[in-house]
């Protein structure tokens, strides 16, 4: 069992090599290789889930191999409860995305090869327990994304791809400076690149001089790390790359972007920024909460103003990721658990929304709720596409937080966790939930009810393949809405450790 993380991490790369060796013309073989690879990976993560010991503290399934011995850089992998939820999400979404990408016909070989490479790098980010390895995966992940958006994207894809890449790279440079500073602060010892060894608030007393001014090491580099992760999440005011990237990206890439890549940012807070700089995190929790709140409200209002349904969902991601930041800033067990749960639930519900929009787009070739000339883009879809509408309703209600579906539990936990610490912010944030309901329902009304738009009469309902890949997501959304227990149990110990650590500094 010890090497299971290695298998999960490298299997997609093996699949990628398989795809690259297949002749270009055999498109179905390429699709099947990808499907089998992601399927086996998913099965392996399920095994990982079952073998995971919920009661054990610390990392499990650790793998450690020396890599660059002079610098004490190791190839270290491991999972804890927080990682495990993300791992499962990643494996599930890639499997589904492979199925949904069946309709991609442009350079099939390159597309699936890049998709598999992306999956491996995302696993790498979540598994890495070595700073150097983490940074390498964090950056390499940008390469397949850049090409996936830039080649298979919409009209304005080049601009979106470059903006996405540059923005993230800008943030990661600050992170890199932080990582190297930590390396020297810990004395270049054996553990100096190990993420775990830095945790626990070891740098509260250290100071640094920059341009003749003395700063606290902890406070300065907390903000360096913050910048790197905040751009990824993205928190207001760093969110401007997101709508472009989402709108231009092909469906599957939007799903991955919203489903797992954004979580890498909040995962960075959970694994790196908070445990390594707990004092600064506690001190600045109000700032984080306020930025989270602005993301929630501002994202929701932006979503409401959109005429492009994909852009609407993209802004709703900004809003929902704001809830995650609110949960993190609470620094209580409920708030943190709620945040991790929200990371998972947002992954499934937004994935549903983007997939559904993709399905519709394949039929309509546009995404306008209201076309630029003022006429309605869709109308009366409910009568035309009954199956589609049912799935859409499930996804939408999960997204807006209807009790009984997954979004509700996580948002409720977040509010519960943060009420005592930030009462006012909680009250305002609840309004964000209301605006969320408003824009989603308004969108639904305009698209699905009312007079049937003549164009919509020719649309076919969902086919079997589409229903097949939507089913697991529907199941997740409903099951974890009623029984969030399995996920909460898994992350309980890991979140508890972090909250205990932060409690020492508040």
């Amino acid at each position, binding site marked *: 069992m010890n090497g299971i993380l290695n298998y999960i991490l490298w299997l997609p790369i093996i699949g990628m090599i398989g795809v690259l060796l297949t002749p270009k013309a055999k498109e179905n073989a390429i699709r099947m290789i990808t499907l089998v690879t992601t399927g086996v990976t998913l099965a392996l993560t399920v095994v990982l889930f079952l073998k995971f010991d919920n009661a054990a503290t610390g990392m499990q399934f650790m793998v450690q191999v020396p890599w660059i011995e*002079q610098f004490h850089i190791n190839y270290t992998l491991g999972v804890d409860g927080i990682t495990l939820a993300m791992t499962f999400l990643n494996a599930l979404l890639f499997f589904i995305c492979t199925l949904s990408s069946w309709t991609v016909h442009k350079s099939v070989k390159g597309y699936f090869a890049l998709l598999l490479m992306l999956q491996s790098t995302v696993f790498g980010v979540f598994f890495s327990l070595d700073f150097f390895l983490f940074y390498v995966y964090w950056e390499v992940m940008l*390469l397949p994304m*850049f090409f996936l958006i830039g080649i298979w994207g919409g009209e304005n894809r*080049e601009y979106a791809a470059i903006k996405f890449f540059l923005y993230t*790279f800008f943030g990661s*440079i600050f992170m*890199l*400076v932080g990582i190297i500073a930590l390396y*020297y602060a810990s004395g270049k010892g054996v553990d100096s690149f190990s993420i775990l060894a830095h945790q626990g608030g070891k740098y509260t007393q250290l100071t*640094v001089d920059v341009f003749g001014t003395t700063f606290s090491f902890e406070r300065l580099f907390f903000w360096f790390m913050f910048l790197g992760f905040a751009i990824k999440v993205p928190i207001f005011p760093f969110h401007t790359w997101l709508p472009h990237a989402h709108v231009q990206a092909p469906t599957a890439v939007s799903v991955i972007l919203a489903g797992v890549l954004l979580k890498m940012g909040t995962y960075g807070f959970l694994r790196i920024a908070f445990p390594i700089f707990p004092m600064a995190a506690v001190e600045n929790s109000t700032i984080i909460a306020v930025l989270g709140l602005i993301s929630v409200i501002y994202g929701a209002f932006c979503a409401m103003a959109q005429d492009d349904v994909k852009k609407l969902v993209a802004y709703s991601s900004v809003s929902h990721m704001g809830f995650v930041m609110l949960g993190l800033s609470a620094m209580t067990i409920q708030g943190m658990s709620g945040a991790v749960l929200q990371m998972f639930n947002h992954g499934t519900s937004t994935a549903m929304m983007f997939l559904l929009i993709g399905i519709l787009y394949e039929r309509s070739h546009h995404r306008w709720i209201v076309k630029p000339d003022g006429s309605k883009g869709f109308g009366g879809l409910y009568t035309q596409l009954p199956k589609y509408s049912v799935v859409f309703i499930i996804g939408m209600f999960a997204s807006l937080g209807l009790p009984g579906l997954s979004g509700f539990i996580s948002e409720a936990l977040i509010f519960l966790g943060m009420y005592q610490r930030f009462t006012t912010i909680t009250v305002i944030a609840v309004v964000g939930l209301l605006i969320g309901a408003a824009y989603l329902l308004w969108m639904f009304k305009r698209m699905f009810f009312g007079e049937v738009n003549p164009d919509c009469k020719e649309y076919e309902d969902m086919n079997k393949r589409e229903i097949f890949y939507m089913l697991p997501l529907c199941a997740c959304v409903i099951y974890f809405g009623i029984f969030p227990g399995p996920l909460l149990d898994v992350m309980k110990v890991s979140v508890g450790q972090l909250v205990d650590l932060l409690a020492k500094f508040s």
Partner: protein
Amino acid sequence: MIQQLLGFLSFYIPEVMCIVLMTTLLVAEASVKEEHGSRDKIYTYALVVLGLTLIPLLQNLGKAPVIIFHNAITIDPFSTMIKIIMVLGTMGSIYLSRSSKDIYTNLKSEFSIMAVGVLIGGMLLASSNNMLTLYLGIETLSILSYVMSSFKRDDATSTEAGIKYALYGGLTAGVMLYGISHLYGMLGTIQFVEMIPKLAALQGGDLAIVMVSFLLFFAGIGYKVSCFPFHMWSPDVYQGAPIPVTSFFSIVPKLGGLAALVRVSMIFFANESLLSVSWIGLMLVISAMTMTVGNVTAIGQTSVKRLLAFSSIGHIGMMILGVVVLNDVGVRAILFYGVVYMFMTLIVFYITSHLSDMYGTDSQDVFRGLIYKHPLMAVIMVSVLFSLAGMPPFSGFIAKFNIFSVIIEKKYYGIAIVAGINSVISLYYYMKLAKIMVFGQPDGEEKISGFTTANQAIILALFIPVVFLGVFWDKMMTIAGDATIFIK
């Protein structure tokens, strides 16, 4: 006496081999008939001899440093490593010149002669141990470079490049000599070893004069490595000169100049003093400005050669940061950067040269839709561009990582941020080129022709280190680390 000289020569074999090569090439060129067969022999001969010089060089790499020719030359692992990089760069450029249409057929063997001559200058510069050999090295390097840059005699830009290069070079060499003569006047010696204690004893006004003299002295080196504010010549020269010459210029003279800069900095300024503090300040400003000017100006370029010229200015700015820290790890970072930079530069120029030969221009448009025309070429070029920008898993990232690492160790956080933002800027223009190659649609159905198996093999062979050193760089760092031994 004779015996002593012969003993010295045993350390000087690589240089002697190059000198013999250059003279024999001159004779062979004069006697060759205008047939392709014999020209090929000249190439093979030059490449084989250059390859053979690697053997004594590699042997010298392990030896303890020595001073030969009465304090004029020092052979230490540092200079040897730089020489290895320069020899490899020369071999790459000579190989490129063979197929390039930018070099006229009747000038092809002359290219080899000139390149070997510049290489000799570079070697002299890298192992100079007094001000005179340093100056000689720079001049040998420069004078042949002027000729090389105007190789396309009937082309206005190439001629302009030659004249510009010569004027700039003449001026800065003069300024440098002026600085050296001041130093000689103040200290009474040109030997590095004897200058050190005398520098340490300087006080007050004398110190000020020496500072100014070093500033003047820096002009010469600054011009060779083309750092701000002496970089003005390089875009025009790079654009005007034939591509093999450009690729040669961005490796050999730059690394030679950098080696001299490292040596001078390490010898005179490694000890804490007022002089070293002001030198560090100068280097910090120079590197920040060099990076920023190079990268920002590169954004608007449409000519690929010009873009690469500005980007190489950016890279030099980055490498100078390794000088700022004035310690062994800084030198190690520079050496590693140098190796990686050489491979990346050669690949980029190989591909640019081939495309520019095919379409007759080096505008960015020749890269449009390359992924559809020649996937291998496009994938390698895109990877190398990302490597140049410092993206993992390529070795360009490790090179930058090491530079970041040494400056952060010395707690220069401010300059680290400047360097980081420069990486972002450089990523932008590399990405723009990558974008044209991958996202652009080709104009027609035509494929890239004439990119032979041999060329593909060469490119792949150059590409493997770019990837390999990005993942398994432990060994290379050890080699570079061992090569930081100086005579101080």
